[in-house]
């Protein structure tokens, strides 16, 4: 494959393979809390093949318990820390579905693990990304959901985020509608509607807002899972962080988020992003889960155009590289596979390329002003739009929009230039005046 014989034509300033190490990420939390620890229980990928070697878990839970919990969760994906909300010490955890089966199996260690995140007398929320009936059906196949009886301190909320081929069909329909220029206005709207793409966006964003709200407003910890915990779960946990955490709206923080919540969390990029919208044969595992996430971020960015350090171009770039790239970053389905492929040695990391000043400037939002607040997007249909930058990219000229962007950059650059000049002059003047004063004083 291309990434294996791609030789970069640029100088690597910082090796992206080491830009976002879990240990470093954990340090950001460890200053605020001592209730969590790094666990190396999955060092050999034996406990959970889709998890990274290092995960963050409650300090009170030892590795032995984790091994037991892993047997009770789908794919061995025991609950791990996804996000720590510094403001109130509450957390988002994610996992696979509990393997309760039809006979209501329970796992004391599992209960203990997630209860360890609750304050005395406080409740938590479990957000299951599947509708109740789907979760119930999952029991027949050995899966299931947390029973009230065994998790009395948790309230369960079911949402319905679609998965797999339903999303893929939605994408195919949308792209077809966008490429068909013959139909009239009404046909366009009904085809947009029939694709259901924006419905999926709305559902995902709503669930993420719900999670963020439980955390920030209710002051409750949250566990999020669907079935495997590798798709809709990650959409929700990562979007909730975009809403809650100002850092994830910076370029660096967003990259870290992708690294943590998508790559290391084991989103199977290889399976999901093999063909994109133009695949003839039905690929069983193909699904635009990551694209939906990027689109959702774009929707929030559109509503808060000054709160993100990056611009739309970064999202488009990530979309492209997730599907086809000269870099090794999105290869494989999880850390274990990437390890076996020796990607770190054999390929270049996308971040090595992106994080060079010359590239970064293309992805920097000129309107950015650090905003330390939680940003609550609107999820009303009137507030959600088709992401033209992706879907209409090849269907119409963006000349005038590009010009507008240029003009925006010019306005801001000129302002900064003047500000710098004024500051220099002020300083000069102040110096001269004190000199003057000194001459005068004797």
């Amino acid at each position: 494959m291309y990434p294996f014989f791609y030789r970069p034509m640029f100088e690597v300033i910082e090796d992206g393979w080491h830009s976002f190490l879990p240990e470093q990420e954990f340090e950001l939390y460890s200053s605020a809390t001592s209730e969590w620890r790094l666990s190396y229980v999955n060092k050999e990928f034996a406990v959970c093949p889709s998890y990274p070697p290092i995960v963050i878990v409650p300090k009170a839970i030892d590795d032995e318990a984790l091994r037991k919990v892993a047997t009770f969760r789908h794919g061995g994906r025991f609950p791990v820390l996804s996000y720590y909300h510094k403001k109130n010490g509450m957390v988002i955890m994610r996992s696979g579905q509990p393997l309760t089966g039809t006979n209501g199996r329970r796992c004391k260690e599992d209960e203990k693990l997630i209860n360890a995140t609750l304050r005395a007398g406080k409740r938590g929320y479990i957000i299951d990304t599947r509708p109740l009936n789907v979760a119930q059906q999952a029991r027949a196949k050995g899966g299931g959901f947390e029973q009230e009886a065994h998790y009395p301190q948790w309230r369960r909320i079911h949402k319905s985020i679609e998965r797999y081929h339903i999303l893929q069909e939605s994408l195919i329909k949308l792209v077809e509608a966008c490429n068909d220029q013959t139909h009239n206005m009404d046909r366009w709207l009904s085809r947009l509607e029939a694709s259901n793409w924006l419905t999926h966006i709305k559902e995902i964003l709503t669930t993420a807002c719900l999670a963020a709200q439980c955390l920030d407003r209710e002051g409750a910890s949250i566990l999020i899972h669907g079935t495997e915990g590798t798709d809709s779960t990650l959409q929700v946990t990562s979007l909730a962080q975009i809403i809650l955490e100002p850092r994830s709206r910076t370029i660096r923080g967003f990259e870290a988020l992708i690294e943590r919540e998508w790559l290391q969390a084991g989103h199977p990029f290889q399976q999901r992003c093999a063909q994109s919208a133009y695949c003839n044969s039905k690929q069983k595992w193909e699904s635009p889960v990551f694209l939906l996430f990027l689109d959702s971020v774009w929707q929030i960015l559109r509503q808060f155009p000054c709160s993100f350090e990056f611009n739309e171009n970064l999202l488009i770039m990530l979309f492209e590289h997730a599907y086809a790239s000269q870099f090794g970053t999105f290869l494989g389905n999880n850390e274990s596979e990437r390890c076996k492929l020796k990607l770190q040695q054999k390929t270049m990391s996308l971040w090595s390329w992106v994080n060079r000043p010359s590239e970064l400037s293309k992805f920097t939002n000129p309107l950015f002003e650090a905003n330390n607040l939680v940003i609550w997007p609107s999820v009303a249909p009137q507030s959600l739009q088709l992401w033209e930058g992706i879907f209409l990219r090849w269907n119409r000229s963006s000349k005038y929009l590009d010009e507008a962007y240029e003009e925006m950059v010019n306005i801001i650059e000129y302002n900064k230039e003047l500000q710098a000049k004024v500051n220099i002059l002020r300083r000069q003047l102040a110096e001269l005046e004190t000199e003057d004063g000194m001459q005068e004083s004797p």
Partner: protein
Amino acid sequence: MEHIRTPKVENVRLVDRISSKKAALGTLYLTATHVIFVENAPDTRKETWILHSQISTIEKQATTATGCPLLIRCKNFQLLQLIIPQERDCHDVYISLIRLARPVKYEELYCFSFNPKLDREEREQGWMLIDLSEEYQRMGLPNNYWQLSDVNRDYRVCDSYPTELYVPRTATAHIIVGSSKFRSRRRFPVLSYYHKDNHVSICRSSQPLSGFSARCLEDEQMLQAIRKASPGSDFIYVVDTRPKLNAMANRAAGKGYENEDNYSNIKFQFIGIENIHVMRNSLQKMLEVCELKSPSMSDFLWGLENSGWLRHIKAIMDAGIFIAKAVSEEGASVLVHCSDGWDRTAQVCSVASLLLDPHYRTLKGFMVLIEKDWISFGHKFNHRYGNLDGDPKEISPVIDQFIECVWQLMEQFPCAFEFNERFLIHIQHHIYSCQFGNFLCNSQKERQELKIQERTYSLWAHLWKNRGDYLNPLFRDDPSQTQGTLHLPTTPCNFMYKFWSGMYNRFEKGLQPRQSVTDYLMAVKEETQQLEEELEALEERLEKIQKVQLNRTQVKSKQSEPSRHSGFSTSDNSTANTPQDYSGNMKSFPSRSPSQGDEDSALILTQDNLKSSDPDLSANSDQESGVEDLSCRSPSGGECVPSEDSGKDRDSDEAVFLTA
């Protein structure tokens, strides 16, 4: 006022449209001109002012345990839901408003009592700001081919036309009068826009009274005169903006369209824009969609499509594009008409002009355009926008559609317009508000008889005075977008047309983007200007001091002005860095808790910075919570609905995501 049955009702609740749980308690006042709701909350005492003329419908709903709900729909798309405790009060308010919202004489309208504290001279100057004779001069008229005709002096030929009309030099009074007799309501072909680059014109008229076979020599001569007035082309287009079927149906009533066999060298073209009744229903349907409580994406898109609104917008745009292309690319003059030539014709002529001439994309040029194509040519503002009580079937959002077309173009050409979205919204607001005299009556003649200019004020002067609020920061004087014709994609593209939530949901602030790029850039530009001035001042002083030092003269130099300089970087930055629209939202941002109040406050703008020069609009600008009512329609089973809320003490606006 004799129509006000009860001037004041207490303990009224104003229901928040987005999260229905919230309702503000306050007092409702009825005045001669406004409905005013003042909230009880002592810290805000927020006021909502609604002009009577903005009220579109009032609906009294079934009384519930909490009171009697009254739904007020406004023409500027505001929706007010009040709950009045007593049935009797509600009935009184209802009856009063029904009467107040439908004045029967012009003198009852707000503009006759509105007094912006300007003296007579200022008022007169205001009316002179937009001058159509100046505009025709700008177009290069009169010239060898076109002249000002006085045939309509004292409105003798056509009472819905202005007196100042440009016609081809070769069209004699005999031809004009003859032609006028062959045109519906005597609206004979006259010049609307002259494209001096290639001497091509856009003319307008009403439909010919051709029936099945009638013809009129003078009318045929009139069209020939128009063709001859643009020597570069051997034909003219005649564009009938109606659907062919409608035009044909008109023939039975002795009206109809031009027969190509009778007129030499015309190319006849139908462009199917629907009539005012279809448009009225379409808007109605779209507004129903906008009003839906937490609609699903499918509800919304399906409803939007079903309303047909964007299809109609596209039809109008297509017509405008067709004419602009005929003029600029084919160099052919165009005669546009519909039935009476005052609705669709006005829409299409003004869209085409806007595409062709960058002047109309400036602030002043846009006012001129509306003054010319709409006001002067007798668009029936009074009938269409229901200023006085009249036939509801005459009401139709004709100019609203034109305004939306402009917005759709602004979305495609962000640097091409000198004005911003707010400008369009405020114009729309004032077309209905009757606060200024510009849009009163149905024709120039009526306005003259009513002595509008002596008795009311001009909106254009008001907008011009506050033009700082209406500028598009991205507008560029030089580049391709602002010069010459705006070139739209050759294959008319459907994706171009989007739902304008900034207009139709504009009072639902929670649905709008929380930060406005326009306001941000405007603030940056303002700061840039201050910096430029400061830079100059600093350079001057620096030079002075250096001179002084060179001369070694002992001049006591003043300390730098601390008040201005020290605060500059912080205070001005906070203005520049926090877009205006956002500030309102910040105030009630759910993330604000007492503990973090300090860090937030830096981001909050004071009320003074709210960008709204318009008293009515700023009074309405709402400060919504940043939290959306997601009232998740998820099929979550009953067992997982969060219960046991009672133990908690929570704010009313909390946990709206949880209303599963």
